[in-house]
């Protein structure tokens, strides 16, 4: 019995001592170095324009206007809610999944002036895992380029050129997938002004 009490005391003391190290000193040390060396990233890669925070370069946000590239459908809250990340969690034989995708396909074709039997890029009509996916596929962006150019009264070529500049390849040519960051591309569109020059 006495031995049990000694072990119990050791357990409690060890819990507290270890907590001070791994729950106190450790995160604070990471915080101190992170804030010192990578302050912009440690604070969320926020994009500030004219004193206003317009978003984070790593997080997607909603775009609905024809003059902007559109991000993927989002299941986070009512769409791109960065306090409620998550996917749709609809399974492959879900009626809701099939009906939702059918509507999105029709909308995507209509918005971008595609033929009624045109194949639509999968990422354009499916919800991402996080609901905050900042990227779209290159194929998806190319389908949208004509619409964006028309809405802005630009040459399609100047939109496509900007798109090429904002296309990220695989890391080291190896890892991940090629992609386009929607928010950064749209900010670049706005930065170019009225005629795209």
């Amino acid at each position, binding site marked *: 019995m006495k031995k049990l009490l000694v*072990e119990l*005391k050791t*357990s409690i003391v*060890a*819990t507290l001592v*270890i*907590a001070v*190290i*791994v729950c106190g000193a450790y*995160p604070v040390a*990471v*915080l101190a170095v*992170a804030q010192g*060396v990578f302050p912009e*990233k*440690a*604070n*969320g890669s*926020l994009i500030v324009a004219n004193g*206003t*925070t*317009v*978003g*984070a370069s*790593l997080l997607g*946000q*909603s*775009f609905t*206007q024809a003059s*902007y590239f559109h991000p993927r459908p989002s299941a986070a809250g009512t769409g791109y809610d*960065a306090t*409620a*990340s*998550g*996917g749709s969690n*609809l*399974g*492959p*034989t*879900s*009626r809701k*999944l099939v009906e939702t*995708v*059918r509507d999105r*396909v029709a909308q995507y*074709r209509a918005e971008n002036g595609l033929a009624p039997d045109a194949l*639509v*890029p*999968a990422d354009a009509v*499916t919800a*991402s*895992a*996080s609901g905050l996916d*900042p990227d779209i596929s290159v194929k998806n962006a190319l389908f949208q380029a004509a619409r964006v150019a028309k809405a802005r009264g630009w040459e399609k070529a100047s939109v496509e050129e900007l798109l090429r500049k904002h296309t990220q390849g695989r*890391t080291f040519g190896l*890892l*991940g*997938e090629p*992609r386009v960051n929607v*928010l950064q591309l749209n900010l670049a569109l706005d930065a170019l002004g009225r005629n795209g020059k």
Partner: protein
Amino acid sequence: MNISGWIQLALFTGVLLAVTKPMGLYLVQVLDANGTTFMDPVVKPLERFIYCLCGVNPAREQDWKQYALSLALFSLAGMLFTYAILRLQHLLPFNPRQLGALTPDLAFNTAASFTTNTNWQSYAGEATMSYFSQMVALTFHNFMSAAAGIAVAAVLVRGVARQGVQTLGNFWADIVRLTLYLLLPLSLVFALFLVSQGMIQNFHDFTTATPVEMKAGVDGAAPQVIAQGPMASQVAIKMIGTNGGGFTNANAAHPYENPTPLSNFLQMLSIFLIPSGLTYYLGRMVKNQRHGWTVWAAMALVFLAGVTVCWWAESAGNPRIAALGVDAADGNMEGKEVRFGIFNSALFATVTTDASCGAVNAMHDSFTPLGGLVPLVNIELGEIIFGGVGSGLYGMMVFIILTVFLAGLMVGRTPEYLGKKIESGEVKLAVLFVMAAVLSVLGFTGWACVTAWGQAGLANTGPHGFSEMLYAYSSGTGNNGSAFAGLTANTPWYNTTLGFAMLFGRFLMLLPLLPLAGSLARKKIVPVSGGTFPVHGVTFALLLVATIVIVGALTFFPALALGPIVEHFIMTGSAALY
């Protein structure tokens, strides 16, 4: 399936192979109370100071009963510590969103979940947990459950390596050394790397952004509130310790929690780093390095088979979606991120369930039936393909004991493992280990199926709904923590039953191992003779894989047939929708 994916798979496997030996050699030093490492000048004084504060003599070794008692009491203290913090969250600091206390059932479920290295989450991180709860209540177990798992694996290895002794090491020395020399330094470096990729680490309140369209005055555009917090310090150990509990609800799919393909690659690698090193540690300790590598190869074989099936299924996609005019060449992108694509989502899903990690970078619930079958089967095989830190190796050693037992039966000799006779006592304890998982998974799933509370939680119906329940109790019992996340598990019934499934899965499986280790340590080592069954080489590796697959298949095939398998045939062969 494309060339790029094959190259990434070869690179991943190659790097894993390359880090195995250095990690194994380092583990040998860390798991020896008298071991030396390059960090001794800095860390040794701290180590001594902790022993002094706790009143522990690291040189005094324990027998299996004392070791088990220390482990059980330490786990209990930690679980109560976490429960108390979660229940008192509203009174504690670092809570800028003024989040309230967790309900008793959710606090119990979460405390059980993190204590058992499961990290099942019935809650959404950013909407439920204060920064203090994340950093203290949860991160504590990310370290300690990992250290305890590795300690038990080391005890079992010592049981095989030693002879004619009662003692197996000192629990306190093991966990303190594992924390100070292994987990903490690795986490520090990895956390800073993750911040360099874009992961957040701050104590700020949530940021309110004015999105571009709102600034432009578009009707209906609303502010975007962005969750913040001390994420990197927690995520680093979440991967290295194969815990898997996300800082945010979307876990490693959230762009802050896994910003780039490079962070993704290293997060996957960090899951396998210690488990892979432990196979080398095993070989080194039992003085049979070929045995260590054979175990590694058996694991790699099942791993590669799993990745290939999952990747193929997700690339093939969902014919129902293709029929709507969606490009079939893109594969199944529902619930996946563009920067990871099909291949890295399939690889992550396989890695996280081969190990007992449970972090996800894609939503398993939206995988195709066969794509989702792979993670489910991985969990049900016992997460021994590299496996959780420590739990992977000790689970694998149970299967090794079963394998040599079966081989002994086939040739009519007394089975032995590395010179230790395997007798009825050892086999009974090994079978107890396997049976505990089976009873918990199938028992709880069956119960949930026939009750109103079980069905009420489903997001999908039909066979997929059954898969959601089967996955939940497999993940809980297997201490994985990933989910078919459509399931609404934050109800008193689910929280309580899953809480017990996690506790059964950890302690009913871990505790039989300690008497097993004790019994092995007492035995004399029989010299190798012509009749000794070799535990290295291709024959043994294949026999081991076959044992794992047969035990797993016989146990879970009927349940899998009702879930993902039938759903696959419905998806490809009919028009039925649920």
